[in-house]
């Protein structure tokens, strides 16, 4: 059953220490807790965790570290965790990357999970590589899918590589645990099942070695998000370099307001400072899942289109009949957007008036 007898490290870096793969079983999801409780992004990680756990024939353990966090264990289970390890300790009241990282590391050394999922939120992206490195194991960032090689139990961590229209299958053949992050909203939240609460075991753990923190949070001011995240919008309007100026984006905003859409953009639009990076659509930005995506003045580069794969209906407005986006859209219009968008706004307002009066829409 084992490929390598225990203790045989083979030809590996002496600083890594031996790992016997066969000792590692189970899938973990590390919960992220802030003043609003368990973050949605960390619950979303239960979706790929379930896929991997089923293929491996193992269970999912949620991990909660913090102060007064035990109450969140049920929520973890309702969304799919089979068991929850809880470390409830005043010393974990404030999140400190090194301190939290070392706590997870200590738990991993005790329980030996084979795969750990960590939400790729800003904090998660800060924390996860520290944990992986302390364990002298590999980590893959921003995965978009996972698969399993059943014979070796290696998890393929799938992500698009630099700039290419490809998916790379990344593998950690000799080290355990395997670690991966995924960006928020790349995976859906699993359906909540209230009957799962309390079904699994809550394992209350103590962390023996809690280092004296060498960094401290001095102040934290919560600034609630005002805009809806683009990854969750039903209708998205995207602008590109073809808009020619930041003014062009004002026009898109006006349209978006009329049709309840969120405005995003291409990387070129972001680089030009017309739209913030949080609204970049594509391989190195956000993946949208809208019902309608309207691409305006966007050429349709592969890296951009990677982010709209899950949009159900794609409309493109481009004045170049040879623009690649026209052959990657459902409905393409060859026209100057400056002519089209103001007319769209006008027509939409007319339709809304008719709908309000209960009149039929007549185009």
């Amino acid at each position, binding site marked *: 059953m084992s490929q390598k007898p225990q203790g045989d490290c083979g030809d590996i870096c002496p600083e890594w220490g031996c790992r016997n793969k066969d000792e590692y079983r189970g899938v973990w999801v590390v919960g992220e807790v802030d003043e609003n409780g368990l973050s949605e992004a960390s619950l979303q990680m239960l979706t790929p965790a379930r896929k991997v756990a089923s293929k491996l024939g193992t269970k999912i353990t949620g991990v909660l570290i913090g102060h007064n966090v035990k109450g969140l264990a049920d929520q973890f289970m309702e969304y799919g965790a089979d068991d929850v390890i809880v470390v409830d300790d005043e010393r974990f009241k404030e999140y400190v990357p090194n301190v939290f990282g070392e706590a997870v590391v200590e738990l991993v050394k005790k329980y030996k999970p084979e795969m750990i999922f960590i939400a790729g939120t800003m904090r998660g992206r800060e924390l996860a590589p520290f944990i992986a490195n302390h364990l002298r194991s590999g980590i893959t960032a921003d995965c978009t899918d996972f698969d399993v090689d059943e014979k070796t139990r290696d998890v393929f961590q799938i992500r698009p590589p630099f*700039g290419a229209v490809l998916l790379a299958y990344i593998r950690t053949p000799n080290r355990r645990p395997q670690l991966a992050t995924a960006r928020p909203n790349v995976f859906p939240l699993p359906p909540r099942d209230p009957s799962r609460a309390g079904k699994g075991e809550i394992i209350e753990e103590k962390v023996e070695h809690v280092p004296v923190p060498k960094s401290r949070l001095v102040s934290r001011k919560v600034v609630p998000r005002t805009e809806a995240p683009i990854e969750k919008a039903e209708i998205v309007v995207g602008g590109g370099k073809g808009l020619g100026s930041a003014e062009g984006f004002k026009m898109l905003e006006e349209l978006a307001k009329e049709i309840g859409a969120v405005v995003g953009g291409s990387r070129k639009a972001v680089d030009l400072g017309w739209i913030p990076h949080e609204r970049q659509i594509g391989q190195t930005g956000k993946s949208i899942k809208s019902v309608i995506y309207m691409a305006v003045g966007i050429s349709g580069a592969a890296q951009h289109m990677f982010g709209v794969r899950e949009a159900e209906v794609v409309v493109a407005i481009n004045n170049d009949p040879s623009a690649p986006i026209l052959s990657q859209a459902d409905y393409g219009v060859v026209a100057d957007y400056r002519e*089209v968008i103001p007319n769209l706004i006008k027509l939409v307002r007319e339709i809304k008036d008719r709908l309000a009066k209960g009149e039929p829409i007549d185009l």
Partner: protein
Amino acid sequence: MRIVVGMKWVPGTQSVRIDPKTGTLIREGVPSIVNPHDLPAVELALRLRDKYGGEVIALSMSPPPAIKGLEYLIGMGVDRAILLTDRVYAGADTLATSYALANAIRKIDAEIGKVDLAVFGQETTDSSTAHIPAQTASWLNWPYVYYVRDAWLTEDGKLRVERILENAIEEWELDMPAIISIAMKSIKPRPVSLLNKIRFKTNPSTLITWTNSYMNLDVRCVGLKGSPTFVAKTVDVPEVPRKKIVYKPKDGEDAARWILKSLLSDEKASRALLKALRGSSGGEGS
């Protein structure tokens, strides 16, 4: 204070092309650049030095052409630069890369002088993992934080930083030595100055190369061998089926009408659109 700032030499993204036959990246003839997200880190390091004294040392683990990038940073005002380069470092994943960088920082500490701070960019444009700062902190056991936008020293010699997360602004205090990574686009980098370029021309010894015969790292810990992860295979992204209906309108109004007609006759799209049109008040702006 002595500050080390990391730099990665990456393919210029503006000119990236894909081989239409293989779907892979054409790297030949693509000029490389300093990772754009490293420049705010360099700028912050220079500002800290200008304010508190000391020196800034740029550090890059890259193939030799990255010398051009280090020269650029010297042009910005970095005091010296170290290129960490060796064939045995090739093929490194982020664990092996951070191992080499952490050891180079240790060597700088031992041979040049005490390092107080290491500064990195948020991520690179070519792989955007954001792993390196945290992994380097793990090897060195230094405190670290990400997404920093500003940094200063307190009277008792601690590092204070401000950072912005998705929904919060935070201030942190770190004991030094520490590692920080700087939020992309948060600080405008200064241009290269002629004076610094001339200074470098007259004193080229400010740029040095460390190979593994100097670093003396175990070859099992670096490069491909020192990397727990590897790319097992690549597959094409399956094409998304689309209707591909293209319309050449008479004018803007015709175009707008056609778009709305198409969306309203599309089952999925019409449901979402009508919901939005009924839902929003529409009173504003009209």
